[in-house]
């Protein structure tokens, strides 16, 4: 794997700011705490990794960051907005315009082609039909999958499916990319390709990437690495200073 990105200058305010977030799941026996007062920040042009053992709350944290889950307590601001005050429709709009997801298992939509998988986020974002094809082609070429454009998604290999999932998260040009084990099913070469692409986006596009990983080599390419254990943030390691703050790209 290549070295971490070069050190950018310090930002005025972080893109993502989570403060004292707690969350618990409820079952018949009572509340099961998953996150216990977690606070973290991710700046513009920054890539952050969340590491920790299985069941420590990494995916829950990522779901909260993606507005898929409302935390029991705490605050969450991103792009200068208090996101926990948004209603259901506004949350969907924020996801649509500002967030791209890569899920743990690649989760492509069944009975669709690669093209159609990438088209869905564009449909929901209201992108015109004439603009969709070039954007899909361009995004697929970044993950070396342009030759699979109209291929049925269920006939792709696991690695190809994962790259399609990455491309689908990027096609809408979101400002926040949340990835749960994005390289989990990829070989070294394609892991590097995906991480290179994330790094390029972070450097060029003024975005933030938060990824959950067990792979120290993937984490080594991130500006910040957070370690979670039993719902608590046990340590934070900053590899590079934050880049300068620039204008917002999406307007939720």
């Amino acid at each position, binding site marked *: 794997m290549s070295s971490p990105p070069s050190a950018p200058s310090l930002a005025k305010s972080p893109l993502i700011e989570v403060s004292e977030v707690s969350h618990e799941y409820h079952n018949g026996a009572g509340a099961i705490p998953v996150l216990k007062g977690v606070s973290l920040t991710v700046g513009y042009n920054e890539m952050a990794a969340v590491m920790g053992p299985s069941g420590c709350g990494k995916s829950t944290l990522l779901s909260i960051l*993606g507005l898929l*889950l409302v935390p029991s307590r705490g605050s969450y601001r991103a792009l200068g907005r208090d996101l926990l005050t948004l209603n259901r429709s506004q949350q969907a709009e924020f996801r649509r315009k500002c967030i791209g997801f890569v899920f743990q298992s690649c989760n492509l939509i069944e*009975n669709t082609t690669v093209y159609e998988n990438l088209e869905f986020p564009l449909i929901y974002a209201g992108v015109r039909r004439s603009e969709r094809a070039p954007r899909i082609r361009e995004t697929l070429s970044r993950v070396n999958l342009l030759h699979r454009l109209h291929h049925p998604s269920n006939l792709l290999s696991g690695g190809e499916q994962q790259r399609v999932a990455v491309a689908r998260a990027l096609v809408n040009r979101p400002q926040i990319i949340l990835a749960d084990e994005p390289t989990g099913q990829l070989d070294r070469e394609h892991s590097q390709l995906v991480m290179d692409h994330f790094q390029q986006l972070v450097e060029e596009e003024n975005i933030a990437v938060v990824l959950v990983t067990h792979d120290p080599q993937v984490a080594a390419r991130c500006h910040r690495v957070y370690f979670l254990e039993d719902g608590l943030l046990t340590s934070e390691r900053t590899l590079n200073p934050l880049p300068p703050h620039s204008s917002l790209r999406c307007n939720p």
Partner: protein
Amino acid sequence: MTKLFDILRVSSRQVVRQRRRYFGVILSIALGTAGLIAVSTMSRDVKKNLNQDLELLGGCTLIKAYFEEFLPDRHQSSRVQSFEDRTVEAVRGYPGVDLASLSGVKRGAAASVWRNRTEHYTLFGVDEYFWDVNSFYPAAGTLFGQGEVQGRQKVCVLGAELARRIFGEHDAVGSFISIDRDIFRVVGILGGLGVGDRTQFAFIPLTTALDRIAGMTRDRLYIRCATWDDVEGVADHMESLVSSHQSSDRLRVVFAKEQLKRVKRIVWWVEWFIYLSVLATLVLGGFGIWNGMMSAVQARTREIGLKKAMGAEDGDILAQFLTEALCLSLGSAVIGIGFGRTIMEVIGKLLSSPPQEDLFLRFMMVGLLFALILGIGAGFYPALRASRMEVVKAIRYE
């Protein structure tokens, strides 16, 4: 608008790609719609045809209107009325009337002499429609038609029993007999399921009868209705129809009320049976959509979660699944309309009666409307359930 078009495109694509899964539903709705269209559009023609075939039931679509010779409370010598031409035309043009025949009967018996033997019988003067109205056909020879009636020819048709009485074993057709003081050529012997006691009567053209037979009047109309549903309406309005053109004094209208009732009851049950079958098929289709969509929502839970994570709103998911249900029901109905049209054409060919386009269009719209209601009714709850799913639960669904 773009989004709506996209949802429609994505939904129809899903239905087409999963057509094997929905095959039973598509078939059920298509057959139901086809049945609805075929039964509703062609039932009148089928009834009409059935009516012609059901003469063995006693001609229950036949109405006889006649002027009574005398009324119990009046003097017997009062003059019998005749149907005037304008009355006959009005009856022929009345809705529900298929055909009407004007005829008369000689007051008192007619007489024929054959080989010095005299036979007395009832003599009818009839027009060219008489045979068709009564569903008579020639048992031998022919039945005289328009040419003979307009030409006032001296030809006659004999009932089979009368022919036997007069001619014995001798072939009656082509023979000449005297009727009162004129000589007539026998052109045919009367046949038909509803002949009844007419087997002992003789029939000559009405025009000839009025010219040559003393005591002949135009006092009876035989009216054939298009279907048994028309009989009571036509019979009820006959008096007012006649009275609007001439006096209806002594007019009597009779039809086979009991037979009609029985036929209508049988047909009512048959019709309801067919309509209930059609309805059951369509409702089964509706349950199929419900079941199909519920299982689709279950099977596609992760897809729903993914789409929501991409930014789809609850309304987008609701619209997608509802549109899929509508594509399924309306698409099936369109196939059913095609089937229905084919069935109509086949029935039309068999009955030699072209399908009525206005009825087809009307029931095509009914079929589509029913499919729309079915699609919304059966698809709404599964779609609502899909739209209300929590994203994280949906994505983690195994």
